[in-house]
């Protein structure tokens, strides 16, 4: 239970690599903040600085308004779930969970009560006597969660905790983590490079790129109003279609009146439609179907249009065939505009 305040946090590694270049994030109490971005953008580095595992070379990190830069991981009262879980291989599940409590001098009967309580929440009760190597990947993941929860820390930190699980289990755990975090009300920072995980979990979503924050805010706001072409192509799957403005026109044939400075036009696959003939206002692109990808409830059409590849989502099974000529349309309010630096325009 704490607020976490990052002010212009920087990290320069010993070799001279600047991994984090001035990040400021204010996380309110009980919120779940998700850091998302491509590999190598500095997510883990930032998380490890919050944990105290890496020194902060610039800026400040504060819990509840108190700067913790100089405080080591042992005293920060945080819990972390590692990507490979980092369970103690020589200890039973029970001892893995009890370890942190013992180190803090919790009385024995209370340790026992809390470990059993937590084990029950996570359905681990029947596994307490096993060692980590006798568990499945999913069970190890739960033990790692349990080890974090049982301590009731100020802040939870997660570094890609679900990336070693299969898709189905990942979906389940995602829901479970969200519920647990809500019911425990512990401020959390969660690192992932899976945009679906990011969207579904986040109270605050932070999109990072090359050591900097590209955009920060409510996940749906970011989805609806991406601040840059980077965010537009990172959030949402399949990513937003981006086209040079000069190559597109409205369905009535007039050249699009783009906002001043806009050089790139974007629209999401789910906001586009395909018709045989243009109708009404909005964007209209002549396109040829190059590929169809049915995924069950929906299908993705890959089309060649304006010298680019454009993806369109259509509901259900698609009746379109390869090589078919059609028109890709999108309503004007669903169009996004970006300037020559990739920043949002208009």
């Amino acid at each position, binding site marked *: 239970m704490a607020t976490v305040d990052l002010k212009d946090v920087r990290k320069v590694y010993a070799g001279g690599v600047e991994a984090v270049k001035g990040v400021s994030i204010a996380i309110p109490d009980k919120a779940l903040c998700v850091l998302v971005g491509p590999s190598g953008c500095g997510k883990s580095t930032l998380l490890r600085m919050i944990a105290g595992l890496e020194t902060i070379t610039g800026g400040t990190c504060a819990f509840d308004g108190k700067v913790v830069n100089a405080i080591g991981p*042992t005293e920060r009262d945080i819990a972390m779930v590692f990507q490979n879980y980092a369970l103690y291989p020589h200890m039973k599940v029970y001892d893995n969970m009890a370890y942190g409590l013992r180190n803090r001098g919790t009385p024995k009967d209370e340790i026992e009560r809390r470990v059993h309580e937590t084990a029950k929440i996570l359905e681990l009760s029947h596994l307490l006597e096993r060692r980590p190597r006798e568990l499945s990947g999913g069970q190890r993941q739960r033990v790692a969660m349990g080890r974090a929860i049982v301590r009731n820390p100020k802040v939870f930190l997660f570094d890609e905790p679900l990336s070693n699980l299969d898709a189905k289990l990942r979906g389940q755990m995602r829901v479970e983590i969200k519920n647990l975090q809500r019911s425990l009300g512990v401020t959390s920072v969660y690192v992932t490079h899976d945009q679906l995980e990011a969207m579904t979990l986040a109270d605050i979503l932070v999109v990072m790129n090359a050591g900097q924050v590209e955009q920060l805010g409510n996940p749906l706001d970011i989805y609806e109003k991406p601040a840059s072409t980077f965010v537009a192509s990172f959030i949402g799957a399949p990513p937003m279609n981006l086209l040079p403005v000069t190559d597109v026109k409205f369905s009535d044939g007039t050249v699009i009146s783009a906002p001043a400075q806009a050089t790139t036009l974007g629209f999401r696959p789910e906001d586009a439609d395909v018709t045989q003939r243009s109708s009404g206002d909005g964007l209209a692109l002549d396109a040829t179907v190059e590929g169809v990808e049915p995924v069950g409830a929906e299908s993705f059409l890959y089309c060649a249009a304006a010298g680019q590849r454009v993806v369109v989502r259509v509901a259900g099974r698609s009746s379109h065939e390869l090589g078919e000529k059609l028109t890709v349309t999108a309503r004007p309010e669903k169009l996004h505009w970006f300037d020559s630096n990739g920043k949002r325009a208009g």
Partner: protein
Amino acid sequence: MTPRVVFPNKILPYLLVAPQLAITLVFFYWPASQALYQSMLREDPFGLKSQFVWFDNFKKVLSDPNYINSIEVTAIFSISTAMLSMVAALILAVMADKVVRSRNLYRTLLIWPYAVAPAIAGMLWLFLFNPSIGSLAYALRWMGIAWDPLLKGDQAMVLVVMAAAWKQISYNFLFFVAGLQAIPKALIEAAAIDGARELKRFWTIVFPLLAPTTFFLLVVNTVYAFFDTFGIIHAVTGGGPGKATETLVYKVYNDGFVNLILGDSAAQSVILMVIVIALTAVQFRYVERKVHYG
């Protein structure tokens, strides 16, 4: 579980292990069986004829107070040497693990003593602690310690233990460094976040995870202290003063090659063989149970 490898060729596998087997047969089993045979012979003083006496040599050896003394000496010597060299190596390895800059230089320097031959290592310590010319002996006397390993048995023991341990530290160090590196860093970090301070982390995480290495070194060091320290003892004390540093191996040599009582000496080496086999078996049976391999 790794799957069992099956070779399609029936003869080739045996052919491939044949050189190793041949070496073991010629250099281990053959001499061992010779020792076994000789331990039941008694030669006349001129070495002209020998007589088969069954276990008489063993009876004689085991009732010899000098032999009992030698067992005690060996026990003290082996335990002290193994302990000292392992503890020192572990401390050095843990510290070397923390060094960030020029760590390879530190490691290289710490591995060098292993390349020194036992007799030379012994001479080194002999010179340093020689009562009349040794510089460290001078320092000890200056501190008010009556240092004279040539007359005082316990001081002679300290000297050979130090020399023998010093020689083995490098070897142990190498394995401990490798063992420490094999411990995932995330475990240490997780323990730190779990509120364990450095010393606590060492005893609750690092040390238990090093157990396979420690166990392996315990076996190796025991065997080393039993057998490989002959050169050091020979160079430093020659088993003296009196018989204060005469270990079992040294006594085998002394009785066999100096005093030429071949039957006794052979019987002793057979006993020695049995002791080491038993020790290793015990270590594997009881100590290894407490070891977790990953």
